[in-house]
């Protein structure tokens, strides 16, 4: 019963109200045995980062369909750095053009999962990424 569970924030930044994808991912992560803190819609980057700190999250998953992905990813990663918490993994999905993905990875996003990605791909990646992160902490 005693084990270190993976804790993930699933958040929707900004003014886009389409949360079906975020909910599907939240469910998939739950079914993989993770504890998913779902923040709901219209979150500011500050709220998302503060939530991750308060909840001792291993990772933040953000879902963006508004086109403002470059801003939100950079901002969230920058705020984490300011708080001395850049060990927290940031990943995401939504409607993000392929040509924008390298730029997001460049600023520090761990992975971007586009439409049609099987949820297992996302789960497997996150499990591995968290294991690596925890290995580094030792």
């Amino acid at each position, binding site marked *: 019963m005693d084990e270190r569970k993976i804790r993930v924030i699933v958040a929707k930044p900004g003014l886009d109200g389409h949360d079906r994808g975020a909910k599907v991912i939240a469910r998939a992560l*739950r079914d993989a045995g993770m504890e*998913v803190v779902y923040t709901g819609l219209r*979150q500011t980057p500050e*709220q998302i980062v503060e939530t991750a*700190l*308060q909840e*001792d999250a291993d990772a933040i998953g953000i879902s963006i369909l508004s086109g403002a992905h470059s801003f939100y990813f950079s901002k969230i990663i920058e705020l984490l750095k300011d708080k001395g918490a850049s060990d927290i993994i940031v990943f995401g999905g939504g409607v993000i053009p392929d040509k924008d993905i390298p730029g997001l990875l460049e600023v520090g996003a761990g992975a971007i999962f586009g439409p049609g990605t099987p949820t297992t791909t996302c789960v497997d990646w996150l499990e591995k990424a968290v294991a690596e992160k925890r290995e580094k902490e030792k």
Partner: protein
Amino acid sequence: MDILVGRALGGDIRSLARLISLIENGDPLTDRVMRQIYPKTGRALVIGITGSPGAGKSTLTDKLIETFRRQGKTVGIIAVDPSSPFSGGAILADRIRMQRHTGDSGVYIRSMGTRGSLGGLSRGTREATLLLDACGWDVIIIETVGVGQSEVDIIKIANTVCVVLVPGMGDDIQIMKAGIMEIANVFVLNKADKPGVDRVAAEVKLMLDLVRDRPWIPPVHKTIAENGTGVGELVDSIVRHHEFLKTGTDGLRSEYARVSFEVEDILLKDLSRRAEKIWKTHRTQDVMDALVRRDENPYTVAGAILKEMFGLQKTK
């Protein structure tokens, strides 16, 4: 470890969050942390919010935070949601209703999954409450999972328990039943704009009339959490109950109950951890097959394990 405790006591949120995880994961360092912080506890007002799923506990908590913040008090929240009995995962979503307070440095919200705990709280809720208390949070609100009739562990941790009811939950027999209806220090009839609320209020009051000789009669508050109606009066009642505990003998009685539960909780968790571990070493394929075939019986198997744990001899 001691550095982490020092930082948490000094107000560092991430260190506090880390310590809560460590405790909820059953880390062997838990005892050491708790021994360090325990002398600093006992100052916070600990409020329990319980009731059925969808009764409005999170929305009500959000409004309570607002009211206490206006009074200049800092507020720590532990919001418990159920873990899956199959995957062990959880969707922790009480926070959604309170998210507007994220960013206010006088508010700390922590979501916890029940992780197999059945009393309406999670493994580690008790310790997390003590940690928040030691770190100087003035008010601690514990929101239980949505409960049915018998998840009453919250009374062992909270000073003041608010049971949230909504119209349409059944007839007066439901209100007569033992369990959750008995643990309220304050009743909250939420969604008071819905039809039927007066009937529920009348039935609860009728039930309370039967226990007139008690020094504290739980007040019954009608609220509409969504727009904050009735929340001010509710907070007044909570504070009044806290004052009552400080003066009457009931306060001492609940303190005895609380410390007794603490020792029991520590013992049971430790024993169940040991039992689980030792059962794993006994749980061979042969034993399992023998049990399934009923050649062996679970009492004998458990008896052998107990003997190994405690050196117990069979009673003559």
